[in-house]
């Protein structure tokens, strides 16, 4: 394949997004069906209310942190497209960070560029920012946190982590793997953590040092014994302080409206309306009475078990762990909307260079099954919502198939992955504990 420079790719992506924003304005003004996401009008209205000194929660269905409305205040005095440009800029920043993270891990330039293209040219991602959805901001913050950890800037990572959990609750699932990673074997005083190079993924641990190899089980054991370390404590204190400060300030300004809409709503959300989740029909059929504690626990159990096992097995390969956790979190959630897919799409390029999956046919099978299951669900949803047919049962079966497709993707991703811890283990004194021997033939 001819080489594509990352700079050209980036500039083309930026221009394409500008074009989409301009096109979106034209479509909104001239066609019945609007290009702009309905959420963008919610953000804009909330921002206008905030700009005039009122609560953004006077805008019904605004269920986000007031920071989002604050960021969009220029919509009311600059131009209504300010927010779209901000979200698209975040979208491009995600591409930049993906490229930077892969370069830090020693991935060759060509592979970096191809992996980044998976984000920059994904139809889900370039439409989401240009239509006015705020998810790219969250994605860029998560990648920035990853980069801070890779560069050894733990305190900075903690601050951004507290901020991102305030803005969106779901990154709370990353707390345990991050804390596990802040092990003294990776972080030592006065020294940056040493990243495991991409080129070593084909290497076997040296037989001379195999006796000192530390398994994930050993890590967890070490964690339990040496749980309290300076870095872990500081990470916890700074991220929690940031979260509680922002939450407390928002509560002080906007009261219980903020707590209900921006926090409790998301923690307790059970939407009986049709969505991709397998639980929607079950919730609708039981909406007239409250679920018992046992029923709630049983619904939560698969999610809890999967998260715990993925963390315990893959935490040290942090990008891979975050990707699997996010995909599983979305798949087993009680409510799934299309914007949630962006949460794991931003992490997918970070694991592709370590995946053995062949595009033909396993890769294609994953893509076709995942998109096919989604299309099947959308077809039944169209019949229900726009044709008025009673196809609740068929739609629910389609959601089961979508979970099956997600499970298939997770399983194949695990099977094809070349496990590669993010950091090398260090002895006391900063020397490497584990060496690698190169194979005789370099694969690239």
């Amino acid at each position, binding site marked *: 394949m001819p080489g594509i420079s990352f700079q050209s790719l980036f500039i083309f992506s930026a221009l394409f997004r500008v074009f989409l924003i301009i096109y979106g304005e034209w479509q909104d003004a001239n066609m019945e069906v609007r290009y702009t996401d309905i959420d963008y009008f919610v953000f804009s209205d909330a921002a206008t209310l905030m700009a005039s000194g009122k609560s953004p929660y006077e805008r*019904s*269905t605004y269920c986000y942190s007031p920071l989002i409305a604050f960021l969009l205040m220029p919509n009311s005095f600059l131009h209504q497209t300010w927010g779209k440009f901000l979200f698209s800029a975040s979208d491009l920043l995600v591409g930049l960070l993906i490229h930077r993270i892969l370069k830090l891990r020693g991935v060759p330039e060509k592979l970096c560029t191809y992996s980044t293209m998976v984000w920059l040219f994904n139809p889900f991602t370039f439409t989401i920012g240009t239509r006015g959805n705020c998810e790219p901001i969250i994605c860029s913050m998560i990648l920035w946190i990853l980069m801070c950890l890779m560069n050894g800037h733990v305190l900075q990572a903690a601050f951004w982590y507290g901020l991102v959990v305030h803005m969106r609750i779901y990154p709370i699932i990353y707390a345990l793997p991050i804390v596990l990673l802040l092990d003294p074997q990776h972080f030592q005083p006065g020294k940056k953590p040493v990243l495991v190079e991409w080129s070593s993924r084909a290497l076997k641990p040296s037989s001379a040092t195999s006796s000192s190899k530390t398994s994930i089980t050993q890590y967890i054991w070490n964690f339990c014994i040496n749980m309290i370390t300076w870095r872990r404590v500081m990470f916890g204190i700074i991220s929690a302080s940031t979260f509680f400060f922002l939450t407390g300030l928002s509560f002080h300004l906007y009261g219980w409206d903020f707590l209900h809409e921006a926090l409790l709503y998301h923690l307790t959300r059970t939407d009986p*309306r049709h969505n991709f989740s397998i639980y929607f029909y079950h919730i609708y059929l039981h909406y007239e009475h409250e679920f018992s504690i046992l029923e709630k626990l049983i619904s939560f159990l698969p999610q809890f078990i999967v998260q715990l096992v993925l963390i315990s097995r893959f935490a040290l390969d942090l990008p891979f762990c975050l990707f699997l956790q996010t995909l599983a979190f979305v798949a087993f959630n009680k409510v799934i909307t299309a914007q949630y897919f962006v949460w794991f799409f931003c992490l997918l390029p970070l694991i592709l260079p370590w995946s053995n999956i062949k595009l033909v046919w396993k890769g294609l099978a994953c893509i076709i099954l995942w998109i096919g299951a989604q299309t099947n669900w959308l077809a039944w949803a169209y019949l229900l919502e726009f044709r008025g047919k009673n196809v609740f*049962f068929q739609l629910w079966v389609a959601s089961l198939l979508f979970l099956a497709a997600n499970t298939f993707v997770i399983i194949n991703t695990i099977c094809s992955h070349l496990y590669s811890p993010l950091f090398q283990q260090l002895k006391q004194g900063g020397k490497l504990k584990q060496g690698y021997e190169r194979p005789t033939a370099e694969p690239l």
Partner: protein
Amino acid sequence: MEARLLLVRINSVLQFVLIFLTIIRSYVHASTTGQAGYVDKYITKTYFEKHDSLIDPEFDNFIANEIPLTLCKVLEDGNCVLPTLSNLHRSVIGEGSHRHLSSSIIFKFQPELKIKLVAHSCEVIMTERLPSGVFADPFELQHLVQRGVFSDAAVFGDTNLELPSFRSNRSVVEIHMSIGSKMLSRHHDKFEINCEVPLHARYPPLGLGFSRVEFGQPDLFMCCSLEVNGFKRSCAYLPTNNISDYKASPLAWEIPCGIREHAGVVSAITYCFALVSALLIVVLSFCYTDNKGSSKPKSL
């Protein structure tokens, strides 16, 4: 002595504050009722300031007794010759959960009224009491106002867009339509107003397949803003029950609903499917070894 003086002063201040608050309250009350004889911007708003939910007999009483219908008096028309309803045709257009409630209203009027009605910026106000099970999106209506489809529109009552019908209350949509341009038609004694209100279905209670939602008649008002009264709005009620050819058959919308008999099977399979999927991932995760490093990695 000094203590007594202080008490007297405090008493005077309190009395002054009480009088001040009373004045403020009466001003607020007057402005919410649009001052005596005149109607505020939205007719329905006053109802929901006094009531928590829409109850038909209470709303009928509100229209009959609490709205100052003084248009005839203001127009100095002792016979109160206003446009009369000639025809009212209603239908629900579209398919699925998003439809339009269409109302086609034909008015007859005496030709000499035409100049007055155009000069006084008169408009027809339609209040649609929505049945439980459907709702209007206030922001969608605002978008239509911005595009000039209506001169104004608002929703009162339960405007929560997400709750199913058995967890929500009813709402009222108020649509304002200017009649100025409609009067300049080729007909010298009648004009027609067409109104399509976008509505959305809530999830209905469980049943056997479909849930039926029925619409009643709208309430129609003629309101004018007269310069002589400082452009304050005066209204008159236009009864719909004296239309000779209006068919009073109820307008209905069939909405698909969940089937109660599915509950057991759906719950059991949902739990089992989630558990099996989770166990597959768990088993594979435990079977995964980190010896993959010895496998041949892919090349570019």
